[in-house]
C-alpha cells in the first residue's frame, strides 16, 4: 500500500521531511494529493521510490534527486529535474522553464509544452545518458551548452498551434549529446554553426526505443509519432569555442 498524503496544509519543508522519514522506515511508494506550488519535492532524495503527484508542484521538483520515479497528474513549474542524477519524472501536463538543467542521468517525459532554456548543459558519461522527451513545443535556448544526453522534441501535444516547434538559439554552444526533432526547424533557429541532419538507422533504433517508453507512459500510439520524419542536431565540434582565444 502506498503512503497517501494530503499535502495542502503543509509547507514544502514538512512534506519533504515526512517523505524522508517514511523512506528511512522502508516506504517505497507515495501518493501526494493537493500539491499546489510546493517547492523542491523529492529534492536530493537518494532512493529507489515511486510517487504519484496530483496537482502542480512548484519550483525544482526532484532537484538533485537520485532514484525516485515521479508521475505528475498536472503540470510542473520551473526547474523540474534540476541537476537530477537518476530516476524519472513523468508530467501529464506542461512544464515551465529550465527543465532538466545540467541533468546527469535519468529521464524526464513531458506530455505537453515546455518553456525556455530546457535541457541546458545536460551532461553524459559512458552509459549514463539523461533523456528529455517533450510532447509539445519548446521555447528559446533548448539544449544550450549541451555536453551530453538526448532531447527529443515532438511538437504534437501543444496548446500553441501557431508557434514553431522550437524557439531561437536551439542548441547554441552544444558540444555533446543530440537533439531529435519531429518535423523541421528553420536554420536561423539553430545556434551558430549547427546544422540539421537526417537520421541514420542507429538513430532510428535509438529513437524508437525511447519513444516506446514515452508512449507507454502516456498511452500513446508510437506509429502516430513516427508518421513524420525526424531531424537530428548534433554538435559540429566538441570544442565550439576552442578557437576563441589567442595565447
Amino acid at each position, binding site marked *: 500500500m502506498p503512503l497517501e498524503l494530503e499535502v495542502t496544509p503543509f509547507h514544502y519543508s514538512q512534506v519533504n521531511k515526512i517523505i524522508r522519514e517514511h523512506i528511512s522506515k522502508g516506504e517505497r511508494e507515495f501518493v501526494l494529493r493537493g500539491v499546489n506550488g510546493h517547492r523542491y519535492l523529492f529534492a536530493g532524495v537518494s532512493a529507489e521510490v515511486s510517487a504519484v503527484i496530483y496537482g502542480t508542484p512548484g519550483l525544482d521538483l526532484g532537484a538533485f534527486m537520485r532514484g525516485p520515479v515521479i508521475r505528475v497528474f498536472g503540470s510542473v513549474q520551473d526547474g523540474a529535474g534540476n541537476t537530477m542524477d537518476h530516476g524519472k519524472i513523468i508530467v501529464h501536463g506542461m512544464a515551465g522553464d529550465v527543465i532538466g538543467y545540467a541533468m546527469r542521468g535519468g529521464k524526464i517525459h513531458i506530455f505537453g509544452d515546455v518553456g525556455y532554456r530546457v535541457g541546458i548543459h545536460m551532461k553524459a558519461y559512458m552509459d549514463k545518458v539523461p533523456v528529455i522527451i517533450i510532447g509539445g513545443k519548446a521555447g528559446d535556448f533548448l539544449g544550450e*551548452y549541451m555536453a551530453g544526453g538526448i532531447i527529443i522534441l515532438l511538437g504534437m501535444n501543444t496548446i500553441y498551434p501557431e508557434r514553431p516547434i522550437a524557439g531561437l538559439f536551439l542548441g547554441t554552444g552544444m558540444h*555533446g549529446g543530440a537533439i531529435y526533432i519531429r518535423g523541421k526547424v528553420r536554420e536561423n533557429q539553430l545556434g551558430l554553426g549547427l546544422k540539421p541532419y537526417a537520421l541514420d538507422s542507429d538513430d532510428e533504433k535509438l529513437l524508437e526505443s525511447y519513444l516506446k517508453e514515452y508512449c507507454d507512459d502516456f498511452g500513446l500510439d508510437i506509429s502516430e509519432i513516427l508518421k513524420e520524419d525526424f531531424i537530428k542536431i548534433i554538435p559540429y565540434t566538441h570544442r565550439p569555442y576552442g578557437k576563441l582565444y589567442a595565447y
Partner: protein
Amino acid sequence: MSTPIFANFHPDFYVERLWDKCIKCKRCIRECTYGVHIWDEKKKTLKEDHTKCVGCHRCSAMCPTNALIIRRHPSDFREHALWTPWFIKNIYKQADQGGVLLTSTGCALPYKNYFDHLVIDACQVTNPPIDPLREPMELRTFIGPKPEAVEVEEVNGRFRLKKKLPPVIRIEVPIMFAGMSYGAISLHVHQGLARAARDLGTLYNTGEGGLHASLYEYGANTIVQCASGRFGLHIDYLNAGVAIEIKIGQGAKPGIGGHLPGEKVTEEISKTRMIPVGSDALSPAPHHDIYSIEDLRGLIFALKEATEYKKLVFVKIAAVHNVAAIASGIVRAGADAVVIDGLKGGTGASPTMFRDNIGIPIELAISAVDKRLREEGIRHRTSIIASGGIRCSADVVKAIALGADAVYIGTAALIACGCTMCQRCHTGKCPWGIATNNPELMKRLPPEVAYEKIYNLVKGWAHEIKEMLGAMGINSIESLKGNRDKLRAVGLTREEMEILEVKHAGE
C-alpha cells in the same frame, strides 16, 4: 611566402646559458614543458627557443649546475609611455591569431592597492600590548548567521537558551582556501589543501569541478561549490562538505562563466565533469535558473532542502559597482555567508581584458558591503568572506578590520606550492605541477609537499595575526571585525576614506 608570426619576433624572456657551468645533462629539456630547450644532435649541443619561454623558472631552478639565468629579454622597443611592450605584444598576438586574449592569475595592472595605503594601530603606554606567546589569543571565527538577540530561560535552576541557535561553522583561523577546481589545479594540490585545512582547523573549497573520491574523508573541512556549469554536482557531493557555495561570479572574470580549456580535460576530468574528453568545460555566464534575487533564493533553498538544512549556503560574487546593494539582496535571499571576490582575485583562465579591467578593489567592496548590511540591520544574518589579492597576514588583518569575517586565499596558497606567477595556468602545461592534470607533471608536486607548504604558510600567518592583534591590545579576532579605528589611511582622498570609513594618519 608564409605569414610571419609577429609575436615570435619579440620574445618576453631571454634564456642565458652559462657555458662554463653547463654539463649538457639535458635536464632543462626534460623540465621545460614549453619546448624552450632543444638538443642539437648535429652539433651535440643545447639551443634555446626564447620565444617559447614563459618565465616560469623551472629550468633554472632544476639545473644541477646553476647554469641557467632567465631574464627579461634585453632587446627593448623604443620607449613610449603609452605604447608599452605589453600593449604592442598583445596586439601582435591578436593580429597573429585573431582571438580573445587569454591569461591566468589575478589583475596585473597597477591600480591603487588600498591595503598598501592603510596602516595598523599599536598600543603605546596607555593600553599595554598583549604578548600572544604568554597570553591567550583567539583567532577562532564562526561563519554563518547569528541570532539578533540571545534569549535565555531558567529551567530547574539552570539557565539555557530559549531557541536553538542556527548552525554555524567554527574555523580556528580566519583564513580559508578559495575555490579552485579539480581540473584547474592538480589533484595533488587539492589533496594538500584538504589536509592542510583539516590540520589548521579551517576550510578549503572544491571549486566547481566536482570532488575526487579520495577527498570525501575531509568533509568536515570542505566547502563544495555549485557553479553554473554544475560540474560533478550530485547529492553525495552536496552532502560531502559543511557548506555549499553558489558561485555567481569571480573577481578575475566578473560577468562571465568559468572556462576549463579542453587541453586540461583529461579522461579523469571528463569522468568527474561528465563532458567529452578534450572539450572545453564551459560554465554559462549566468546560472540559468537564477535571473533574480527571488531565483537565487530558489536555488539557496533547493540546496538547503536537498541537504536537509544541515549545510550552510554561501553565495560568491565578484566585487562590482553595486556590490553593496547586491550583497544586501543575497543576504535577504537567505545566504549564510556572502563571499566577495575583488578585482585582484585569481583564476586558472580568464580573458585578459576581464582580469585586468572589470570589477572593483576588494578593500572598498568589503567596507561598502559591511556598512550597507549594518545600516540595514542585517549584518548579523550573514558572514562576509573577502578574497582577491590577499598577499600577507597584514592584508588579512586589514580586510577583517574593514568588516570581513574571514578571508579566502587562492594565489597565495599556490605560490606556497612553488608557483612563480608565470600566468600560463590555462595551457595545462604548468611545469611546477600545480595547474595541470598531466600525470607526469603532477608528480612534480606530491600531495605531501603541497600539504606541508600550505600548512606552514597559514601557520606563519596565524602567528603574525596574533602578534598584530596583541600589538593593538586586542585578544580576539572578533574584536577586530569591522574595527576601522585600528586603521589609518596614508595618501588616500577624502572620498576613499569615506568609503573605507577610516581616518587619515595623524587624525
